[in-house]
């Protein structure tokens, strides 16, 4: 019969994992982040802030948008500066990293 970890140990392990996730995300700060949103636009900027609701703030952001509804289509870009992307409209979120680092992020 498998013994369950005692509650205190479980809580300790859980908090260590929590710290790990938060620490990993902290390491992504100031990195290039590419966020896709529901209407098909992408925003490329430096990851600046994340809150509990999953809203993201990017700095020095470039907006990429298609000029046609159908794809593939040419895109145009526009500089926006600091933006806030609500989590409700996000469809994807990628970070620029090396192949080796990629594994540690998943």
């Amino acid at each position, binding site marked *: 019969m498998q013994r369950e970890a005692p509650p205190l140990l479980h809580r300790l392990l859980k908090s260590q*994992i929590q710290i790990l996730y938060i620490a990993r995300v902290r390491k992504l700060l100031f990195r290039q982040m590419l966020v896709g949103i529901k209407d098909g636009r992408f925003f490329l900027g430096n990851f600046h802030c994340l809150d509990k609701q999953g809203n993201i703030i990017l700095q020095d952001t470039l907006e990429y948008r298609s000029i046609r509804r159908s794809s593939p289509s040419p895109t145009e870009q526009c500089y926006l500066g600091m933006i806030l992307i609500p989590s409700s409209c996000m469809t994807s979120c990628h970070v620029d990293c090396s192949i080796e680092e990629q594994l540690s992020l998943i």
Partner: protein
Amino acid sequence: MQPLKLDEESSSIQHKPQNCAISSGDNSVWADVSPLLSAACTDLHEGELINGDNFNLFAAMSALEIMDPKMDSGMVSTFYSIDEAVENGFAPVPVSADSTVDVQSTLDIMDHLLVCEATWHMGHSLAQTVFSCIYVLRPEMTSSQALLHSYCRVIRATCRAVVSVVSDARTNEEEDLFTMTYGLPFNEDEDAKGLLLLNAVEETICRQLRACKATSSKKRLMEDLEPLQTNPQLEESFCKALLCRIRFRKHFLHALNCMRRPQGRGLELARKHIAYCISELDSVLESAEFLRSDVVENGNTEIEESTTASGRSPIGFDPTLNKRLSAPTPPRAIKLLSWKKAIDYYVKLLHNLDQICVFPLEPDLDAVLQFVIRFQKSRPDLVARAHLQLLLVQDGKLYGCDTFLTICARALALDVTKHHGLHNNEYILQLNQLMINLLKILCANTPWQRRKLGKILNDWSVFNVQMGISVAHMMQQDTSRTSKNGDKSLLILNHIYGWLEEQINWVALRFLMLGFDLDLYSLSEYCMVYWYMYIILWKLAEKARFRVLIIVNTEERKAKRNKEYSRDMVREDRISLWVLFLQCQTCLAQGLTVMIAALRNEGMCLKSEGPFNTENEKFVQHFELLQKASLPEYDAYESFSESTSHARLDYLPVYEYFHDAQKIAKDIKVGYANDPDKLAEVRGLEQVAERNIVAVNLFCQDRSLKVSFEFTHHPYFATAVVRRS
């Protein structure tokens, strides 16, 4: 520890960003971090953030929120782009296959463009107004439709002309994005051809109109003319509706171009075009009844708020397509003027432009200043004010003709034509710049004007002191040698130095009076305001009187030397009349100061001191800029307190001041008989004096009366209104 489950669907390899143009860096890939972020979010506490050391919550508040329609200019609404809109038939060419509907729709487009243009003039962006029309954005689309094509080209040329004049004037600080084009297409060469095309279209429609009115026999000759639309009964009305709109558009552009000609050479011709514009606008208004005749009215308010004469929505307009061209401001929806209000705006603009065209361009500084003040009374909009400013100041000269040294010297009856060296004198160069700045400021909107006038007072004051020291030093040196070569440069400089103080006080007076226009003074502050006006007016009148004496002296000497010399009596009389006008205002200001002080001292009027500021603090707040410019040179507040603290209603001079004002006003009415505006103002001053005499009499008899102040007879001098409590 259990590893995070890999979700293959979210792996970075299968769901890399679709757009290949968004490449990651060298030797790097895009890694999906959504699961990691989700996990971190779950573990964060409420209110906890993951952010770097440089994160500033206050700065983060200025971040643009994506998908918020008020902040996100790239939000997709109907179409992704203008090309997509066109491909989906949003702006069809021709507008309709049915020729009657086509003409109606073209008229709606013209009306809506007029509304957009007026809305743009009033402070909104081009992208959300005129260039919300696809036909204007892409005129090459309509090249097969001469009418729409040429009309759009002329609109673009007109917008370009207005952008040019306002940019050159640079008085649009308060109007934000007015001249910002943000890369909107303005093709000078192609748009310039628009007028030629529009003339040709006008000629065609004129012939069509003649054909409509022709008898049946002549009609057979004109059968080769293609009608605008299929219903012969409506042809004449449609022709007329189109013609008045085309002609207005044409004459408006001509008027703007004529007004830009240097040295005011095009003003007379501009007046003719303006008259045509006003006449055509009348016709445009008359056409509304016909255009509306087949539209079912859903209540009067819808028609009144409509942006077209017919009440229909125009085809081919979408302000959201150009949202990104409104950057960097948020793409807030704007409210367009109604069609009627747009017409009213143009009528006012045209009347203001006509006022400018009528100005006789006298090389007389007093006349220029009086004209600008009078022009500003009608609260002209930016376009008219920009034209005035560019007319007055060109190439650093008045009207592009005379230097300001010549103009200032003329105000003192001095001739500087033989003193070429004076034009390069450092003080004259500075004076030139001060005068240019003053004229530009006087052409600005009222709030901006007042703010800038307050600021330049110190510049003028410092310049006055510096010039005074320099001239005094030069005159000391000059007395040690006899000047036999007739060089009067130093004398001229000395006179100009003396004239400076008159100008400084004129600016100060204008600053104080604009406070009434902007409702900056509360009732409890009238006493101190009128006291200050009295001080400035007294000084201004004194300096103006001194100038009259200089002029009379100079003219008499010239007349003695040269028997054939003819004195400019008109100028002497005008300045003398001006002095009397100032004296009338001085008496009124003095009377009001003493009357309000007496009412305050006897408890019948609000005291200046309130719960938040002392009277001294309020005094400093209002007059700090004047005091910094040493106007007056002594402690103003102390002087104000001393002169008003003992005022009583039964103090005889209260009556005398108003009586003196009344008497002077009666005397100078004759002098202003040929100047209706000035005559009306003098009558207003006279009535202020009369009413206040009556009011003071009543106060003396009954201290229980309630008093209030109104500006019914003059915008700056209050009339006391008495009521029983």
